[in-house]
């Protein structure tokens, strides 16, 4: 398979080749790859690419998935206008 034509992160348009090159360069956790490539920083927040990248790292480095992939999320979970965060709302 031509890994330049395989999109791993659909949100940020990152190919399998780019991911493999980064792993070879020594970025061997999903978190590190996210920070250098933006994979997982789009609208779906790494739900599609995270497991695929984790599997790729695990396959190449031999490390178990749970060692290279620890999903963490921060609020807000979806898109929101700034005025909603800055503005005051009644507490229920």
């Amino acid at each position, binding site marked *: 398979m*031509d890994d330049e*034509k395989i999109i791993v992160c*659909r949100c940020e348009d990152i190919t*399998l080749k780019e991911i493999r090159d980064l792993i070879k360069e020594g970025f061997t956790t999903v978190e590190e790859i996210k920070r250098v490539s933006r994979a997982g920083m789009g609208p779906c927040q790494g739900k*599609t690419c995270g497991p695929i990248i984790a599997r790729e790292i695990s396959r190449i480095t031999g490390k178990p998935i749970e060692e290279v992939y620890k999903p963490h*999320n921060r*609020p*807000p*979970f*979806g898109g929101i206008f700034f005025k909603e965060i800055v503005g005051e709302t009644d507490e229920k």
Partner: protein
Amino acid sequence: MNVAIFEEKEFLGGQLIKQTHKFFGSKDESAGIRGIYIAKNLINEIEKTENIDLYLNSMVMGYYEDGVITALVNNKMEKFIPKKVIIATGAFEKSIPFENDDLPGVFGAGAVQTLMNVYGILPGKDVLMIGSGNIGLIVSYQLAQARANVKGIVEISDHIGGYLVHASKVRRLGIPIYTQHTIVKALGKNKVEGAIIENIQTHEKKEISCDVICLATGLMPLSDILNQINCEMKYIPELGGFVPIRDENLKTTVENVFVAGDVAGIEEATAAMLEGELTGLYAAYEITGKFDKRINTIKERLKDLRKTSSKVVNGLKKLNLYEDFIVEPHESLGDLHKTGIPEEEKIENLLSSKKERFAILECFQKIPCNPCVSSCPTNAIKMDGLNEIPKLDYDKCIGCGNCVAVCPGLAIFVIDKKKESVILPYEFYPLPEKGEFVEILDREGNLLERNQVLSIRKMKDKTNLIEVKVSKENLKHSRHIRVVR
């Protein structure tokens, strides 16, 4: 007690509102009922319960250490401070990488089901399904009902992933299942025009023309909120990926936070519904001290349901749950696992009766399902337990066909040797007319002969019974019909 439900979408029901097939499980739960009707019943119950506040179009944004949950309600950020929180966010579809996987026409199975069953839009004409788990099999069947051509189902493993009765259902429509194959490439310039699949053993490639590639390659728990609040998670492949560590009441490691359904681990919908009931009652029990009896009943029912799900139980064992629970090893069903077609010998065993007219239960795999038992007016069908194979007492069977209509797996048929006819379940449109000549197909969808429809029994739940005339030699092979006009 007051309950608030937050739902990102504008309607309730989650995945249930797309499930047009009948559910397995026990008659005591929702077995034999189509998912869409289960959703309707549940939604009705919620709407008529006064102490439930519904927040539709409302996405939860975060859960903070001071116990505040923020949600976007009608585009306004609102705060809530609940005593207990149940997270039932379901699952997300896993994808697989292949060449040109970003071409328009590559869909997730969930999207195909939403388009087709919620909005009434067919995503394409010729579909290649990737994955033969229950979702892949069911969506293939539904696509065929909507008159798409399903060109094949591709499965990387050497056996079919989903229930074998679902596999038999798609095979008799003439849909091939390619085990030990994977997709390597989508073809087409601006949209999908085909796909190349490869045998993972021989590396032999095959080109299939299609305009839709549908990925049904598994689910993983949708655990954003759990990850945010630092719930302890564990990676358990059997349950779909990272799942929250919890006790038998589905209580997580974070105080007052519970889980239910696929977010706790990927499983069948019936288990998810029971888990929902269990966790809801347990959260209420922690506040009121009531419901303990009912909680134990549900736990028992969940256990019964999981008796043959070795994968799920093995996953739960890694969470130190179900430790003493033993799943009986699955009986090998030979080629049925690879082809979805029962072996000749198995079928012959069902035909040995000297009676003229009787039911044939082509149900060989142990799965939790029992609607046939109570459908029989003469008590001819017996089952030793929810997960056992139904046994037919030929002396008692009168060949009425009631069980044919209720079997969620469409695995029961009636043959009449004297009349030379077969009664089969039929869930397609158009229905044939009485007296019309139709094509009679075998278990692989091959044409056996053309013959006449003797009767049609229209059923309320839309699994209609068609009795067709069939020549003697084809009685045991006739499993589907095609209306040709």
